[in-house]
């Protein structure tokens, strides 16, 4: 037993280094994908202190919008790529409208309410989006238009360490896009006037109001940004599996990523994502069989929990102020 826990997995790692590399790669890739979802959460949390449960459904909704518009345009005779990019533009537009609606209808009346109330309100948004999305798009899974958006397909197979490590091109693209977005957002928070205001709003709505920060404007901005992140996430996840409401479940996986990195940290999202992704894959691959496999469903949460016990605000989160 002890052998199986403490020695055998490492023996395997050494014996089949190609599989180890492949596992790490898969872990990194799913980490990046989790991080993308987590990023949307972070954006909104950082900017408004709202724990946006609707981020998961926003991913689904934006992807469905994209695919839906594409279907419409191509039925009107646009060529594949043109239709795809037109649809992309319009889907982004829809996310803007959504951001404005959310701000106007939900956030504005609920300003300065406790976090948990706003959290609950995002559940309301989730329900509305599910209902609305299913009415408009139906429940059937759709194919993501990856080729039309010039996303690569196929794989790069690398002969190494006595085996074949195969990297999917779409995964590489996801990693690149995710890094670009994270760098961009980090700069946005650091370098802009709005960045500071965002953090102020997250700290205290009341005080932010009193110094004249326009919550309304800021909320539209961040929700739109989060909507764009959701759109990108939707494209990436959709290219891996189909676009359907089942994707919403995956969004839950962003939660451990989030707590691990800290709710308020953009880099935290990516680091947390990578730790969770890699940890979960390694755990499942090398130790999962001991428990009969399928432990991934909770492993991520347990990893996050262990880190939390050590740092209650996550790796990069703002310190929790305890003072009296």
């Amino acid at each position, binding site marked *: 037993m002890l052998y199986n826990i403490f020695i055998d997995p490492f023996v395997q790692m050494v014996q089949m280094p190609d599989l180890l590399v492949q596992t790490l790669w898969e872990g990194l890739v799913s980490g990046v994908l989790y991080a993308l979802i987590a990023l949307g959460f972070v954006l909104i949390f950082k900017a408004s202190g709202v724990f946006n449960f609707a981020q998961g459904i926003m991913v689904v909704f934006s992807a469905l919008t994209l695919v839906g518009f594409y279907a419409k345009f191509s039925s009107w005779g646009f060529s594949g790529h043109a239709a795809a990019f037109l649809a992309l533009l319009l889907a982004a537009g829809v996310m803007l409208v959504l951001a404005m609606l959310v701000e106007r209808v939900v956030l504005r009346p609920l300003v300065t309410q406790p976090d948990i109330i706003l959290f*609950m309100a995002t*559940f309301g948004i989730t*329900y509305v989006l599910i209902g609305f999305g299913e009415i408009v798009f139906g429940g059937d899974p759709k194919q993501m238009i990856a080729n039309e958006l010039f996303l690569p397909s196929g794989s790069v197979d690398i002969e190494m360490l006595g085996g074949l490590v195969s990297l999917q091109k779409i995964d590489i693209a996801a990693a690149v896009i995710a890094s670009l977005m994270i760098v961009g957002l980090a700069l946005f928070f650091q370098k802009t006037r709005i960045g500071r205001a965002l953090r102020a709003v997250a700290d205290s709505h009341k005080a932010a109001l009193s110094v004249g920060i326009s919550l309304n404007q800021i909320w539209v901005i961040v929700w739109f940004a989060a909507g764009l992140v959701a759109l990108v996430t939707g494209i990436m996840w959709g290219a891996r599996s189909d676009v359907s409401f089942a994707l919403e479940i995956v969004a839950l996986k962003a939660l451990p990523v989030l707590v691990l990195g800290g709710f308020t940290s953009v880099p935290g999202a990516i680091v947390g994502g990578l730790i969770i992704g890699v940890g979960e894959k390694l755990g499942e691959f090398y130790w999962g069989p001991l428990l009969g496999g399928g432990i991934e469903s909770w492993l991520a949460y347990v990893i996050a929990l262990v880190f939390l016990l050590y740092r209650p605000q996550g790796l990069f989160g703002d310190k929790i102020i305890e003072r009296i």
Partner: protein
Amino acid sequence: MFYRETGQFKQNYAADSAVFPILQDRYGLAIIMVIAFVAIPMFGSEFLLASVMIPFLILSLGAIGLNILVGYTGLLSLGTAGFMGVGAYAAYKLSTMFPQVNILVWILCSGFFAAGIGVIFGLPSLRIKGFYLAVATLAAQFFLQWCFVRVAWLYNYNPSGAIEVPGRTLFGIAITGPMATPVNRYYVVLGVVVVMTLIASNIVHGRIGRTWMAVRDMDIAAQLMGIRLLPAKLLAFAVSSFYCGVAGALMVFLWLGAAEPSAFDIKLSFLLLFMVIIGGLGSLIGSFMGAALIHILPIFIRALPESLGLPVAAATVEHLTYLIVGALIIFFLIVEPHGLARLWQITKQKLRVWPFPY
């Protein structure tokens, strides 16, 4: 006007610290009790009993459990369904291992198992707070659910992987299994829920409840008042999980009749959280109101097109239900972020000064 308590004097502190110090409230409660114990079983249809009232009561009990944790102690938890599952599986194991003991005893005992597990998963709450804690409790949710799937011993190695409820009786009357009529099951559930609500009300209105609320409102100050955080929080986890566990056992034995592990999935946790928040954090009545809104309202919406004779497809009704429930959640939060219970209080305030606006 209708709600003026003029002329109702309290002669002693016992009367003043009663849970319902105002006469009108007591009348209201009595009327509700009469409706619940007499009118509904007499006039209600089977559907009303089996699909509306029983689930409503059971969910209310679960919501009370969660409210103790979230509303009274301020510990956000998303593992409720997991704890309910512990109760359900414990009741199942106990009742199949010792079939001679009355099933009701085991249903109530199952709460202790849930409480034990709850305490274990409550340990991190000393260090972890807020949404971070919520995510930590998700670990409980997913881990427990995994156990329900994986540990075949829990479901007596049934090839179906599910727990099935054997028919059992109380005083010779079938209360579980296929022979139990909805009325019988309703009475059992109602009895358990009423008693447990009473107990919960006693706890939260006494020293322990105040301790919890102090921890919720300002844990640092609470510590300096001599409250030890860990025991207080763990007790909240234990009591809360006890309630959830009993609710889970009731759910399987008196409502569903058989359950797969997926009956205790994350959706149920969320649902209960909705009820607690919409109903009102830190309010027992709110738990009932929340459960009514979240459970009964969709049933009502689903039944609406048919009763109006509108030809709407079932799926569309479902989509619309999502849409409407979502919109209503937002609506109620905007009208009164502190939940239906608070809305009710304000209404009472207004009644007090009626016909003047204030």
